[in-house]
């Protein structure tokens, strides 16, 4: 994907996008939301902390495109800022999960027995607790907040990435080029970095996008129960909570945040679907080791969301 886009000229690039309308739709929608969030860094229609009780529960109008909430804050501004928070929290959590989990998984595959046992038991241990309970524990110890939500979600991404990395690296580790690497005097760390990591990268990327969308959901869940982002900052989950208590009185308030939240998740899923399909077809096309990757990957992918979804 990356290389084929880079390798082509502009005409060929046009052709490439034309052949993959799914990717274009997903990319455009994701970009749109990312842009929305990024703009909120420098500009929102109104400051999100500006409370104006007199103007609360307004419907959509020229001055407030999406109306105002129970405190008279501008909904459009809140959605923009909340989208950013959700994205950042999820992305940081993926970074934590991949940053710690992938090296752990690679270490398990490269060093073998004792390390493998340790890593696998550690991930089993983390898997054994529902994420939300540990999130409650973390926030009880350190107080609620976006940072702690990132830590709690990131913690649960670690075993997911460790498992995916370990499983797929194992199938690569039996190949002859790894043995030649060992003959050339490469240590386990060098083998993992030079031979294993590049060959499992595509799977890690796919898993990363899955965890990203799950992270958005998880952040919303934590904020909804009051353990995530704290006012005056906002996130999509927090907005949902605020809006839901008013839903029966003022239905429109709910729709904005809810719709954006869903769309956010769905579009990134949409992109991910394309990447996954793309990976599958590349595997079918020939690279022999990808075949084992695929079977391993799909089983990991189907196991992971079940466990980390809250």
């Amino acid at each position, binding site marked *: 994907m990356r290389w084929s886009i880079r390798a082509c000229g502009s005409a060929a690039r046009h052709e490439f996008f034309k052949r993959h309308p799914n990717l274009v739709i997903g990319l455009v929608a994701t970009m749109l939301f990312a842009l929305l969030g990024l703009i909120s860094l420098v500009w929102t229609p109104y400051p999100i902390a500006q409370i104006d009780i007199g103007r609360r529960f307004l419907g959509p109008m020229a001055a407030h495109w999406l109306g105002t909430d129970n405190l008279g804050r501008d909904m459009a501004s809140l959605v923009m800022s909340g989208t950013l928070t959700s994205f950042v929290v999820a992305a940081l959590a993926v970074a934590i999960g991949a940053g710690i989990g992938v090296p752990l998984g690679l270490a398990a595959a490269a060093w073998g027995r004792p390390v493998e046992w340790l890593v696998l038991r550690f991930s089993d241990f983390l898997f054994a607790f529902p994420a939300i309970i540990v999130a409650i524990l973390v926030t009880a110890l350190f107080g609620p907040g976006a940072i702690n939500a990132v830590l709690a979600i990131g913690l649960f991404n670690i075993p997911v990435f460790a498992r995916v990395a370990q499983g797929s690296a194992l199938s690569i580790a039996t*190949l*002859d*080029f790894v*043995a*030649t*690497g*060992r*003959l*050339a*005097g*490469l240590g386990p760390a060098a083998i993992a970095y*030079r*031979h294993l990591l*590049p*060959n499992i990268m595509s799977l890690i990327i796919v898993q990363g996008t899955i965890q990203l969308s799950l992270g958005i959901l998880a952040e919303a869940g934590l904020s909804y129960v009051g353990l995530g982002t704290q006012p005056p900052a906002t996130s999509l989950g927090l907005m949902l909570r605020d809006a839901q208590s008013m839903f029966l009185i003022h239905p429109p308030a709910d729709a904005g945040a809810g719709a954006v939240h869903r769309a956010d998740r769905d579009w990134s899923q949409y992109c991910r679907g394309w990447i996954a399909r793309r990976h599958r077809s590349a595997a079918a096309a*020939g*690279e*022999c*080791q990808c075949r084992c990757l695929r079977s391993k990957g799909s089983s990991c992918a189907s196991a992971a969301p079940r466990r980390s979804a809250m």
Partner: protein
Amino acid sequence: MRFGSAEAVSDVSFTLERGERFGIIGESGSGKTLTALAVTGLLPEGAVVGGSISIDGVPLPANEREMARLRGKRIGMVFQEPMTALNPLMRVTDQIEEAIILNRSDSAQLDVPYLLKEVGLEPRHGERFPHQLSGGQRQRVMIAMALASQPDILIADEPTSALDLITQKRVLDLIAEICMRRRMALLFISHDLKAVGVLCSRVAVMHRGRLVETGPAASVFSAPQQDYTRRLVAASRFDITREDHPLGGAPLLAVEQVVREYRQGGLWPWREKPLRAVDGVSFAIGEGECVALVGPSGCGKTTLAKIIVGLDSATSGQMQLGGVAYHGADLPQEMRRDISLVFQDPFGSFNPRLTIAQSLGEPLRLEAKLDLVERQRRLVEAIEAVGLRSEMLARYPHEFSGGQRQRLAIARALVTRPKLVVLDEPVSALDVSVRGEVLALLARLQAEFGLTYLIISHDIDMVRAVADRVLVMEAGRIVEEGRPETIFAEPQHRLTRELMAARLPDVA
């Protein structure tokens, strides 16, 4: 039966009589497997077929349902790799039974014990799972499944190329016998001229998707009409490639009473008797010698090779390389450059994400103090030594053919200028026509750099062509040793005799 399709395979037409045994010969990529798949209607997605195929004058149905029924009833198929063609989670009996039930016809029903007996297996084998059977037994199970529907045509796509010599001979005999008994037509696809020569009465030679030559086996092989056929026939014989080199130098490698045991898994590992893969092997290799280690699959020869190069460690016993003793993985870092390994599979031995220069340069880490210029010079020297061009260093492995990759693997083994090169089945994954080239290359390099080879193989003909000395190995022990001329002319041990008997006669 007649068909022609575009691009990958074009203008291929042939007929197959009832009871006839027809062979298609071709190298990888020549379209022989596609031809067979077209006959069974199992072509991969996106393949467009023109022309026609008919059985008993009736064209193949276009409808997938009818085609599946026809496939079940009239055509049996045996694939190259029986491990992937069998369902690993089903007992063998159940798989054969499924094949019988799916293809229920009006004629007399076969039952599983009968089929097992027909392919030379005992009922107890039926109770096992595929992974509990040997390669040859799995291939027999595949044949039993193909026979379940009492087909008129049996298609065998390289059924023996994953098997060792003795098993190959047995499976070929079995196929011949069954075809004879059932008056079944056989479409046999192989790159191995000898196997086709033994089994088939008529052959077709395919090259780049076209039929080059068709005719009775004997006349095609003895008096080939086309250049390509002539080259194939010539390549199927191993000429003696040994170049004169001084023998009987000082011993370079001495293997002394090496034992490698694997502990069986299980709840109580200490109660299980450990499996001895290598059982007290001793031998010595002199400088400049080419020694071959021959034996059937599973005799421990690859394990021994891994211990010698330092990928695995001996349970007991030791090796000496140039006077320094080691046990395997404890081979001192500064000695590692003196020994290198070439793998059997040219496709798995290169990291697809690294350039050839990066892969080739990897062993150079073992040599301290190499500056960039010197490093580059060594890479160029190595790649040119194997007859490739230095600009290929910037390419990635997928841009090379199997033969070229094996050359690159040899280049990588030579880049540290080792004394001993261990070659694990160096040509068995290659096409017939490039085998000769690679062997000639090895002989040339040996003369040029004074290399010592340890070749591991089950291919008697190849060993006879290249080796100075042969060691025959069975069940972890070396059972016979000698010069190739004497050992193969007057085999003493039972296994050596069996190996010789299993050799397929030369074509022509």
